[in-house]
């Protein structure tokens, strides 16, 4: 049974594909072997059919090529106006994807999927617009010819001799829910052509003699049929995967393509992708970094190649090694690769003899791994030579011509100096010359590279023989030991040059790796220790700016939307155009802007900050050099951005957790508050209601004593209610953080005086001892709040001590702080409660009714807002003692007598 069970990962992937498809619009491709088979006609026909089924259909872009029968089909279909683009004085028309999305039809018709948009459009290619429509949930019907598929473009050119410039990636087929092949026999197509149904009369002949030859058409037809068959096969497999029908599961094949800095690699990559697709196999693209320094052009081509591979679905690996064949095999073994695809070397026979063929070596040592050698072709070869200056064999990068020229110039200089010394100074023999030349070779190996060093070794050996070894100015060597010397020189130069260059590469690579690890470590470390979002972002921006020499901006989320402006730590300034690019990146989760196919005219490269769950922002990067990032830089940047995204997510989650905790805490407080105050509120209300109703009774009114007592009962209850409300208000102001101190220069003695006077009635006949230090300076306080603290403390003292005991208040200055002590001579605070009396709603057990449990909590809040301290303790000789310590900040300004002069 087991062998019939589908691979769970594959199953999941198939289901996810299905889910993604449900949200997305459906794509139907009308597919043909060449122009004129009737794709547009078939598409319009199908669309009209849907329209009859009450589907909302619009025409996004249809080119009828003035074919009458096609044009009649357009009648009655709504056409979304095209977008006009001015390009170098001419006005071009493009499909307006935004207008279609705004119109929200169920189905849009888009002709010519492979079309290249006018420069300045958001996307380079129309298929990207189509993907956007699909993602907006709009179904799309589109048309495309087989020659436009990237993987077939080469084959088409080989068959027809016509280069195809407008291509779509094969991966567009993954989006397709349905493919309809519009098939026509080549003879019928030629007949249609002759009848003028495809091209206008003046073009018929040219077309018929070139592209539309029977041979070409047959080949294209085969290609179209095959592509359709492949696609149908895939759909069948997806179906079987989901339905758990036992069948041919994915093969165990794993392909690996060797990528170099050559434009030819593109073809290899496409070839491999196609093969992997047909084999249902995973595939890797591998670049082997050798000791040779690539030119900037080569670097760019390499980055392009590796990006292409990644876009086509390969896993990209960069490995180091001087022997490309060995390194390739090492990676192949590590990754269980079954087939390796390499380019066929196009170098001359001589070069192959001299340097050995990597391909031959690879084949010799490959063991059980199959090797495919794929040929590059002449046309591309020319373009390679034109572009890089000389052909670059697969898969090695070599130094540029300038580097070779420099190496030979150094050898020439050394030789010239040696010539002078040799002729002028008698003891400078040809051996000394030989060793100085050797030195030159080593220097070249260290500072320039291996290739130039080998060339220098070769050149210097020849010149040494020719210019210095007897007989001079011939290539002959007369003495036997000179022959040995010469041969040894040659070998040593080559070995030493080789070794030195190799060491240098290792060192460079180690340094690069160390730099990369350091940069990542720095980012990880700094962001891990950052305490808040601002710190995190500032660190991230600084690190990226440093490592990539770029200006950086981060756009975070504000609610569910992207912020209007960069985070303040950013070094970039936003403008509306940039923001719309960033917005696109945010909505689609794909990079855009500079160096991408989407909105490349923007100077800033935008990357989504993506976490497994969502997109938390967009980062914009503008390289100061404005050159494309190399592939490893791109990978590093990706690592950076995902790290930053994770840290931002962490911060966002922290904030959310904090808010949740605060909410929980405030809910808890709210519950406690309700419990505590409902009783406190009801008691005075009950007293007031009771007393008032009693006073309505004629008997009570006539009893002066009773009514007097009831009236004072009402008054007391109302005062208690008032105190409760004031406490609650104070507490809520303190809690909400909205408490703003109104600091002013105050006389502490005056505050105490006011507080005591306010409590006159509560204090009654109680003895109050007030001692104020006569040298007490003015201090900056919030008069009303500190007065409130003293009132609360005095009130507490009154409530918790017998009426006959005194209360004392002392204020004195100790250095730069003022100490106010409120003490009573009552029973003191139970030791167990000392720590808890400042808690909200805490009331010492067994205390009299009437308090809220808020007074002391409010006091401490106010004193702490003044950066002071409130300490509760029991005095040694009995009674509770509360000490307020307030720091004195600044000297009170001088005062001035009135001047009546």
């Amino acid at each position, binding site marked *: 049974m087991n062998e019939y069970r589908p691979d769970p990962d594959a199953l999941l992937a198939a289901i996810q594909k299905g889910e993604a498809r449900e949200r997305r619009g459906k794509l139907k491709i009308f597919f043909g072997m060449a122009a004129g088979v009737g794709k547009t006609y078939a598409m319009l026909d199908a669309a009209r059919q849907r329209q009859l089924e009450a589907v909302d259909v619009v025409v996004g872009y249809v080119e009828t090529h003035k074919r009458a029968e096609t044009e009649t089909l357009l009648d009655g279909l709504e056409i979304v106006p095209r977008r006009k683009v001015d390009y170098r004085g001419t006005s071009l028309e493009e499909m307006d994807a935004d207008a279609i999305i705004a119109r929200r039809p169920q189905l849009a018709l888009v002709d010519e999927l492979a079309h290249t948009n006018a420069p300045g459009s958001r996307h380079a290619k129309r298929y990207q617009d189509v993907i956007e429509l699909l993602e907006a949930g709009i179904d799309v019907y589109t048309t495309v010819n087989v020659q436009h598929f990237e993987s077939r473009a080469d084959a088409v050119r080989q068959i027809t001799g016509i280069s195809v410039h407008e291509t779509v990636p094969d991966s567009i087929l993954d989006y397709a829910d349905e493919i309809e092949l519009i098939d026509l026999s080549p003879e019928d197509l030629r007949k249609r052509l002759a009848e003028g149904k495809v091209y206008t009369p003046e073009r018929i002949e040219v077309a018929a003699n070139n592209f539309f030859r029977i041979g070409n058409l047959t080949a294209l037809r085969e290609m179209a049929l095959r592509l359709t068959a492949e696609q149908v096969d895939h759909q069948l497999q997806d179906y079987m995967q989901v339905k758990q029908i036992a069948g041919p599961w994915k093969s165990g094949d794993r392909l690996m393509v060797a990528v170099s800095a050559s434009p030819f690699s593109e073809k290899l990559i496409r070839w491999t992708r196609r093969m992997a697709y047909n084999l249902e196999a995973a595939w890797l693209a591998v670049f082997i970094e050798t000791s040779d320094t690539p030119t900037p052009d080569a670097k760019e081509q390499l980055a392009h190649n590796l990006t292409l591979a990644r876009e086509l679905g390969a896993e990209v690996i960069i490995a180091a090694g001087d022997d490309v064949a060995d390194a390739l095999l090492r990676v192949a073994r590590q990754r269980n690769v079954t087939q390796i695809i390499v380019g066929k070397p196009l170098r001359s026979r001589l070069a192959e003899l001299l340097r050995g063929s990597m391909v031959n070596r690879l084949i010799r040592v490959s063991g059980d791994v199959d090797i495919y050698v794929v040929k590059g072709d002449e046309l591309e070869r020319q373009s390679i030579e034109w572009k890089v200056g000389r052909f670059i064999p697969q898969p090695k990068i070599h130094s540029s011509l300038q580097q070779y020229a420099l190496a030979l110039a150094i050898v020439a200089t050394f030789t010239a100096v040696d010539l002078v010394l040799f002729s002028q100074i008698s003891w400078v023999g040809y051996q000394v010359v030989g060793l100085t030349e050797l030195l030159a070779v080593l220097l070249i190996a260290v500072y320039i590279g291996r290739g130039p060093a080998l060339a220098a070794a070769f050149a210097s050996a020849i010149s040494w023989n020719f210019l210095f070894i007897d007989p001079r100015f011939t290539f002959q060597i007369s003495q036997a030991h000179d022959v040995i010397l010469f041969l040894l020189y040659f070998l040593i130069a080559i070995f030493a040059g080789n070794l030195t260059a190799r060491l240098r590469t290792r060192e460079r690579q180690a340094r690069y790796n160390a730099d990369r690890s350091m940069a990542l470590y720095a980012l990880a470390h700094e962001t891990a220790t950052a305490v808040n979002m601002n710190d995190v972002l500032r660190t991230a921006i600084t690190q990226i700016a440093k490592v990539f020499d770029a200006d950086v901006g981060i756009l975070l989320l504000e609610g569910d939307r992207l912020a209007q402006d960069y985070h303040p730590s950013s070094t970039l300034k936003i403008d509306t155009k940039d923001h719309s690019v960033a917005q696109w990146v945010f909505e689609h989760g794909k990079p855009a802007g500079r160096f991408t196919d989407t909105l490349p005219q923007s100077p800033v490269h935008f990357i989504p900050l993506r976490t497994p769950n969502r997109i938390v922002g967009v980062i914009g990067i503008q390289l100061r050099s404005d050159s494309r990032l190399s592939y490893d830089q791109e990978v590093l940047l990706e690592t950076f951005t995902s790290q930053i995204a994770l840290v931002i997510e962490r911060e966002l989650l922290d904030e959310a957790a904090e808010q949740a905790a605060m909410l929980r805490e405030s809910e808890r407080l709210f519950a406690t508050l309700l419990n505590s105050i409902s009783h406190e509120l009801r008691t005075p209300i009950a007293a007031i209601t009771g007393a008032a109703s009693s006073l309505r009774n004629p008997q009570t009114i006539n009893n002066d004593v009773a009514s007097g007592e009831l009236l004072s009962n009402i008054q007391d209850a109302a005062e208690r209610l008032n105190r409760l409300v004031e406490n609650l208000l104070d507490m809520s102001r303190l809690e909400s953080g909205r408490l703003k101190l109104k600091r002013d220069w105050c006389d502490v003695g005056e505050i105490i005086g006011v507080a005591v006077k306010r409590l006159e009635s509560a204090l009654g006949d109680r003895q109050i001892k007030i001692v104020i230090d006569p040298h007490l300076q003015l201090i900056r306080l919030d*008069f009303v709040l500190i007065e409130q603290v003293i009132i609360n403390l005095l009130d507490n003292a009154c409530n918790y001590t017998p009426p006959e005991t005194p209360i004392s208040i002392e204020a004195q200055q100790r250095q730069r702080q003022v100490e106010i002590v409120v003490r009573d001579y009552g029973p003191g605070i139970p030791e167990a409660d000392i720590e808890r009396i400042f808690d909200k709603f805490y009331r010492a057990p067994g205390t009299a009714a009437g308090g809220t449990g808020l007074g002391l909590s409010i006091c401490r809040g106010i004193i702490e807002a003044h950066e002071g301290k409130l300490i509760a303790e029991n005095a040694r000789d009995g009674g509770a003692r509360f000490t307020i310590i307030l720091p004195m900040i600044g000297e009170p300004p001088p005062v001035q007598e009135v001047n009546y002069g």
Partner: protein
Amino acid sequence: MADGLSVLIVDDEIQIRRFLRISLEAVGYQVHEAETGQQALTRTAQLRPDLVILDIGLPDMDGFQVLTRLREWTTTPVIVLSVRDSDHDKVQALDTGADDYLTKPFSVDELMARIRVAQRHSQPQPETPIFSVGDLQVDFAHRLVTLRGKPVKMTPTEYALLRLMVQNAGKVLTHQQILRAVWGPEYVEETHYLRVYFAQLRQKIEDNPAVPKLIVTEPGVGYRLVVS
């Protein structure tokens, strides 16, 4: 008794209006009511009350606006009602031209005292050369201050302060009003002058300077010389 003086009560709370009406009518005032700022303005113009009691929190416009509009054409005394925690409102009301304020909740006794003071200050004051409150006597003509018959030595500043407070006996004066009157308009921010000189003054004229009874501090607002 209040000899039929008329009072306009401006408050949107019917309970407050009712309790004020009953209390004031009981002692002989003639009481009118207004619920909104607009009503307050028209009623004041129509009825020409002798005194207005104005709540700062009104539904249609705030009390300050009413006060400003009133002060454009009338000097009728206005007593403002406000709540605790709004010292700023009290100061603003006083500086806008209110004669006094009361903090809710307040007792009728306090209200009556304020009304009497405001009423007195709105009348043309007979030029009394000697003022006395409790044991304190101030002889303006001779610039002489005596406490229980004994002369008290004063600096010019202390005397200027005391004279201002005495001239406005019973009324609250804001910090700014005092500073402007005694030191001059450029000193209105120097509230610490007041802390220092009132402390000195209290040392000289109060029985118990730690708990002053004569010149009391109105926290966050100003000072008041208590008459009754």
